């Protein structure tokens, strides 16, 4: 008996799981890059108005 269904199920499971994991990693990375951008901007702005700075 060939059991093609089991063969199909095993490979589909592997590819779907890898695809979902990669997608979650990519989304985590995008989110972190965006957060980093916002934090750098915030730090630049807070640097300009820090107590040691001369008032403009």
């Amino acid at each position, binding site marked *: *008996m060939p*059991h*093609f269904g089991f063969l199909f199920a095993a490979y589909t*499971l592997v590819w779907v799981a890898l695809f979902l994991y990669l997608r979650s990693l990519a989304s985590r990375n995008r989110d*972190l890059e965006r957060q*980093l951008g916002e*934090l750098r901007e915030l730090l630049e702005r*807070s640097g300009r108005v820090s107590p040691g700075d001369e008032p403009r």
Partner: protein
Amino acid sequence: MSKPSEQPGLPNALFEVATLLAMLAAIGAIFLYVPDDALQGPVQRIFYVHLAMWLSTTYPAFAVFGVASMLYLWTREPQWDRLGHAAAELGLLFCTLGLATGSIWAKPAWNVWWTWDARLTFSMILWMIYAAYLLLRTLVQNEDLARLLSAIFSASGLAVSYLTYKAVYWWRSIHPAVIVTREGSSGLPDPRMQITLVVTLIAFFLLFLWLMRVRVHTARLQEEAEELRATIVRA
């Protein structure tokens, strides 16, 4: 403040292309090149990906996890902790897929999805070690305790990895010994089967290395964000 995270360059792109080509070669070999097993028929082709889940990914992940945890304990450099954590996460993913593909193969071959055979039992223990480590890492905030946990889990993981591999030789087991049989010969008599297995193992090892790079990059970004947040709070 930390340096901005590195951008992926040409070597990274070449590595990605090599991984993709190796994966295509593995898929081609599994579905177009290798002959059917005389006894099991086409379902035996599950073995190539199932073996790769263990030999190319789960075991190397535990080795990296173990070595990185020890190096972190020794040097206290955060890069080793990042590497160990990334390896544990990938190890859990591939260990899960290894158990699942084995179970899917077991149903037509043994007529059961699962049996408490020595290798299967050790594989399940290995999965539990990975899962428990990652769960505790998210719950434990104390850094010293987290380091201690990493060391305990990685050391026990390395020991159980070795037992998992050796189980089919040391105990009575219905799990086949594919690479080297209990009698010492190859479990894959046809050279095309051996070539397909080697190509698949290489392809998944490259995939594992590439995923490690991506996951370590994610951890670095996370650390950078935390450092920036701390700098803003201090400012």
